[in-house]
């Protein structure tokens, strides 16, 4: 079996607020294999972005990683062999974390405006990143000149399908349309040749036509450079097209995880099943009531006891669902699920 590039183990992230503490991420585990696309789905607020920001040690205050490991396999360099390091142990602003951000792991953040500063051109910002991580382009350490970095940016813009790249390099982010800004963000993320790209809803704000182009682009990059991708989206259609494996999250935990075909064709967790039923399909019957998930997402201060999904579960097994917290256990070919319908294992409390 291939060793994972990234392995998130039992991650817990808490926000201590005046009203109480929010367990935004409450025991998340998943692996990313080299060159694979992992899709992450789940309702708003279930902890997708916080999990991703934890990987890069970018969790906003007052968020804290309370528990767990994030193991990353550093590539061999300068005669150093491959090493596995726990990212949670690195200083947030230390040199090691900075060397990893961008060059090893790049993030396309969920807020498109947050990615670029409004006072510098997008080109200048990408040039700066390339010069900072110059060994990604010129391994001998002799550096990348500004002119050379600019050439690289123009080339990247061309790769991501930005027309008139020579002119667009000098634009400010607010001068670009949503679709162009999204592409510029992808160019920025790729500018240091990361081995792992984390895309947090990179196509939510853009049209299907532009989305199709962006997805095709990401697939090509993954094929060409073997970049692994973690892809977060609400859109199950996008997941079906992009992912090799899927992680379904609910209230800060992994409900189910497995190969994309298993998730779509033999989902095991009641939440995954309900989610798949609730989407209007482009081929299904129209103007009929869609199956829905009963109730609403609990308030983060008001987590249910036992299985977090039990107040809404339409396949509830029994009293254990409200008493104990099922944990993620393998049940089938690479498929794992947190549900008592499939095993009896629970967290110790």
């Amino acid at each position, binding site marked *: 079996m291939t060793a994972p590039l990234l392995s998130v183990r039992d991650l817990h992230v808490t926000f201590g607020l005046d009203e109480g503490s929010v367990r935004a991420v409450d025991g998340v585990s998943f692996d990313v294999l080299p060159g694979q696309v992992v899709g992450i789905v789940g*309702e*708003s607020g279930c902890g997708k972005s916080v999990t991703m920001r934890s990987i890069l040690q970018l969790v906003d205050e007052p968020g804290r990683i309370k528990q767990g490991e994030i193991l990353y396999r550093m590539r061999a360099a300068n005669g150093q062999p491959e090493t596995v390091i726990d990212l949670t142990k690195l200083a947030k602003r230390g040199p090691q974390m900075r060397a990893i951000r961008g060059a090893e792991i790049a993030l396309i953040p969920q807020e498109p405006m947050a990615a670029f500063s409004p006072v510098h051109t997008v080109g200048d910002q990408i040039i700066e990143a390339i010069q900072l991580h110059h060994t990604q382009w010129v391994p001998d350490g002799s550096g990348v000149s500004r002119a050379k970095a600019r050439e690289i940016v123009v080339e990247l813009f061309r790769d991501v*399908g930005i*027309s008139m790249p020579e002119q667009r390099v000098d634009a400010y982010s607010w001068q670009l*349309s*949503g*679709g*162009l800004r999204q592409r510029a963000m992808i160019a920025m993320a790729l500018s240091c040749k990361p081995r792992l790209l984390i895309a947090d809803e990179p196509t939510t704000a*853009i*049209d*299907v*036509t*532009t*989305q*199709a*182009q962006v*997805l*095709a682009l990401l*697939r090509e990059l993954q094929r060409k450079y073997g970049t692994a991708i973690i892809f977060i989206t*609400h*859109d*199950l*259609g*996008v*997941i*079906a*097209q992009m*992912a090799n494996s899927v992680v379904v999250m609910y209230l800060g935990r992994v409900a189910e995880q497995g190969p*994309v*075909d298993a998730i*779509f*064709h033999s989902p095991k967790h009641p939440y995954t099943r*309900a*989610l*798949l039923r*609730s*989407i*209007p*399909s*482009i*081929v*299904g019957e*129209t*103007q*009929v*009531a*869609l*199956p*829905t*998930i009963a109730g*609403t*997402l609990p308030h983060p201060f008001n987590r249910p006891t036992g299985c977090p999904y039990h107040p809404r579960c339409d396949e509830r097994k029994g009293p254990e669902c409200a008493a104990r917290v099922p944990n993620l256990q393998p049940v089938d070919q690479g498929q794992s699920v947190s549900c008592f319908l499939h095993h009896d294992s629970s967290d110790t409390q």
Partner: protein
Amino acid sequence: MTASHSADTQQPLLQIRDLRKFFPITAGVFNRTVGHVRAVDDVSFDVFEGETLGLVGESGCGKTTTSRCILRAIDPTSGQILFRRKNDEIVDLAKLTREELQPLRAEIQMIFQDPFGSLNPRMTLFDNVGEPLLVNGMTNREERTDRVADLLKLVGLRPEFMHRFPHAFSGGQRQRIGIARALSTNPRLVVADEPVSALDVSVQAQVLNLLLELQSRLGLTFLFVAHDLSVVRHISDRVAVMYVGQLVELAPTKTLFSRPRHPYTSALMRAVPVPDPRIPVGEVTLKGEVPSPANPPSGCYFHPRCRFATDRCKVEAPALREPSPGHFVRCHFADELDLTTAF
């Protein structure tokens, strides 16, 4: 040519004729007009009583501007917006003054995309939902309380919630509150601009079900604006497709999705990712960027991106035609092209 039913059984509630909305582009200290954004550029269609007409198209194609003209939140540049009132009187909303519009406000209501922005955070649900009632002359507080309670029940919220503020509710619940507010005056036409776009899939399903149910119970007519084709297909009787300010195709939902006649419609459909990993990913057929409505291309606005474009398309703008009854399309070659979709 107008997009109306040929085999006409239903009556149109709304008839849009040659609607245009141009926004001036100004420059210099004297705000000289140097050009126009042709946001809505000669659009005509009908909305029949009791139906849902879906309006789709890429960002910036003029969906919201069309909706805002109908609501007269903005004044159209030209064209007619004929609305049939309860007493069958037909009025042109485009020509009415603010005062003349006032009595019509109750009959036409709006649901917005942003469930957070459309409610006043400093007002309770009672005031948020009851405000249109007050504006329309229901001054008796008790009467309003009863009506608000009924409305909350109608959209699946508990009447006890009436005295709470919007921030105490989730996105889906807030959208329900927005719907209750829109329905408070017993409107006949509801214009919904991206009403489920900001919601999670599971919440989206609840709100779509609610809209379908309310429509059948109250006989509402919807103009449903959205960019998600699966959602539009699910809820609409007919679908209109816009491109750069123009209507390029309009047909009954099933016909449009199984046999689109405009190259843009078929490309748009092919771009929708199908939620089944066993269906191979289609080739990207629509490349390039949407042209600016300030400077649309010559001839057919779609020609720079159309894989069927000919020399004729570059110079001659196609008219909206009706090649088969009830199916409207703006393309020179609508009768000849073979545009089978993936579905």
